[in-house]
């Protein structure tokens, strides 16, 4: 019996010792620039409490690089009411179906020798495009796998700096505090962009990745009130997922509900952060844009909406006709460009989460 007791005592001790030995390397670790354990190797200018790991990991959602486009007339995959993004590079309008971007989030391209990146966050329904540096050895961006306030954090492959899509700001890394240069992105339906730009080209599903682009990857997320990740603050003035176009600075935003423009085109003259702006939108066509009303010569323009002539959306008191990309198509300032502002459309909860103060124009 004594011998048996000795065996009984010894075996569990050996087992527990082995287990603890195996666990001794505990903690997070890794290569490729990661910091071991809980020691932060990065400095962030945003509260990391609301930086979340999305799950797939860095590049787990594959960004597209120089993807294939096809003439819009050849499209058979995108439905007329499907939401798309449109970017104008030179005389070419490129169209990006959101059902492809849901699965890739970042598209790296070069247009007229200049690289740019377009990003779309399916959790906040926000899209921006930034010029990237042609001098970088690798000017492309990837999906970091991290989210801030449930919104995409991109990373640049040249310096591994992290960029908040909605803040439009590098928030970690050697380019911290750097702001990108915007390119105007228009969000609308495929039918609207097809009617406006019949010579546009559309991002094809030939991405090199096996994804079912007909299916939305996040269930009924777009319509329910659920948030998948914690955010800094909430506000119930609007439905969490209501789409609104807005303008922002570092900590303030003003938004305009996309379904508040009505079935005819409207223009709204407003001021944001001391800057005169014009908001033009048409709910039926599911399109809205925001531009500065002040020209580089100091002139402040007054606009009236143009009906049923998209892409021309407004004209000013000087007789200039402006299209949705902010280019004067006719008039004394033909060819001029309205100054871009920091604007995009996004879900309501995301505006509130990212900015301390959010004013709503259409409530």
């Amino acid at each position, binding site marked *: 019996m004594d011998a048996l007791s000795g065996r009984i005592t010894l075996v569990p001790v050996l087992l527990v010792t082995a287990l603890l030995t195996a666990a001794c390397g505990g903690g997070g670790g890794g290569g490729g620039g990661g910091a071991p354990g809980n020691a932060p190797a990065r400095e962030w200018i945003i509260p990391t409490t609301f930086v979340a790991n999305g799950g797939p990991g860095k590049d787990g959602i594959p960004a597209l690089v120089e993807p294939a486009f096809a003439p819009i007339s050849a499209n058979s995959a995108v439905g007329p009411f499907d939401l798309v993004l449109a970017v104008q590079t030179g005389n070419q309008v490129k169209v990006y179906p959101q059902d492809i971007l849901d699965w890739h989030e970042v598209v790296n391209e070069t247009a007229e020798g200049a690289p740019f990146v377009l990003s779309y966050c399916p959790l906040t329904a926000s899209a921006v495009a930034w010029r990237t540096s042609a001098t970088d050895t690798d000017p492309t961006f990837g999906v970091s796998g991290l989210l801030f306030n449930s919104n995409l954090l991109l990373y640049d492959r040249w310096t591994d700096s992290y960029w908040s899509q909605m803040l439009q700001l590098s928030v970690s890394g050697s380019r911290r505090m750097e702001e990108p240069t915007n390119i105007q992105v228009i969000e609308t339906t495929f039918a609207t962009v097809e009617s406006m730009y019949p010579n546009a080209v559309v991002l094809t599903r030939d991405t090199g990745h*096996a994804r079912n682009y007909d299916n939305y990857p996040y269930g009924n997320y777009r319509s329910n009130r659920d948030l998948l990740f914690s955010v800094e603050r909430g506000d119930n003035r609007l439905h969490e997922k209501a789409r609104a176009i807005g303008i922002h600075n570092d900590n303030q935003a003003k938004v305009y509900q996309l379904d508040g423009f009505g079935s005819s085109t409207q223009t709204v003259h407003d001021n944001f952060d001391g800057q005169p702006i014009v908001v033009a939108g048409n709910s039926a066509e599911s399109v809205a844009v925001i531009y500065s009303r002040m020209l580089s010569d100091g002139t402040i323009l007054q606009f009236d909406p143009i009906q049923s002539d998209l892409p021309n959306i407004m004209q000013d008191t000087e007789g200039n006709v402006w299209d949705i990309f902010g280019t004067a198509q006719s008039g004394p300032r033909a060819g001029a460009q309205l100054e871009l502002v920091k604007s995009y459309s996004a879900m309501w909860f995301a505006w509130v989460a990212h900015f301390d103060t959010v004013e709503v124009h259409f409530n």
Partner: protein
Amino acid sequence: MTMRSALPLAILASLPLIPLHASAQTCSCASVPLLGSMQPASTEGDEWFFATTYEHHEISDLVAGSSTVPDTTGRIRTATALVMEASRGVTDKWAVSALLSSVEHKRAIGGESIRTSGLGDAILLAKYSPRRISLYSDSALSFGFGARVPLGDDDLARDGVFLSEDLQSSTGANGAIAWTYWAKAMNDSGSAQIYTSASFTANGDNSRNYQFGDEATVSFGGSIQMRSPWGFAADISYRNANRDRRNNFEIPNTGGDWLDLNAGFQYRVSESLGIGFGGTFPLKRNLNDQLQFTTSYAWRASVSYVIGSER
């Protein structure tokens, strides 16, 4: 058949070659494989049972619904666990078990890699076995119920940001476990058996309000102990997992249904000591929503030791 001669059968049933619960929650929000390493049979009165299992899960299958799709990112995802179990037969019908785990997760994609490791969860289980296979009974029946206790870290971080739940060594949440196991001898010696088991795991929230989906598993299979020291077992298991939840909201692309083949063999070194090797191979999967990573295969190696009573 004396109790002593029945011991090898107990070892065979006890060796964790066949998961009691093919539990690798290895969807995109994986947890740690754990309950799968626990022995299904109960320990007899005054017996001690010890087992050490090393489990390796390859989590490389990218699945859309029930279809496997190629993963063009070339990523590597593995989870391994060292699981140690000690069981003590309190009476002939009641036993208690404790299980400790150490878990390691690895992820690599492109030039990036990350490895996490640490103590995982523990399981404390009470087992009630009203019937055992013996000279007087050709069937066995056991029930178990207990708790999963998060001993390890669920707040591992990198670059100051918490890693996702599938990279934590512990779920960080308490849980409740219930299972049942039934076996029937198919010959006089009891060396051939068929068995079935069912289990249910209810999971709580961790400190970040993340909850792994509750799981239910049913399996059916058979085992045979040769006249030689070799024994073999195989079963088919069905597992259903609910979607994970965060802040009580369901997380898309988690949970689903799995049908797996589990097979293994064991070698009886002595009447008390056995070693074994087994694997899990997916037969069919139907996973929730659009895209999930899940287990391609798993293998496990075990050593078990029984210290019997001098009756």
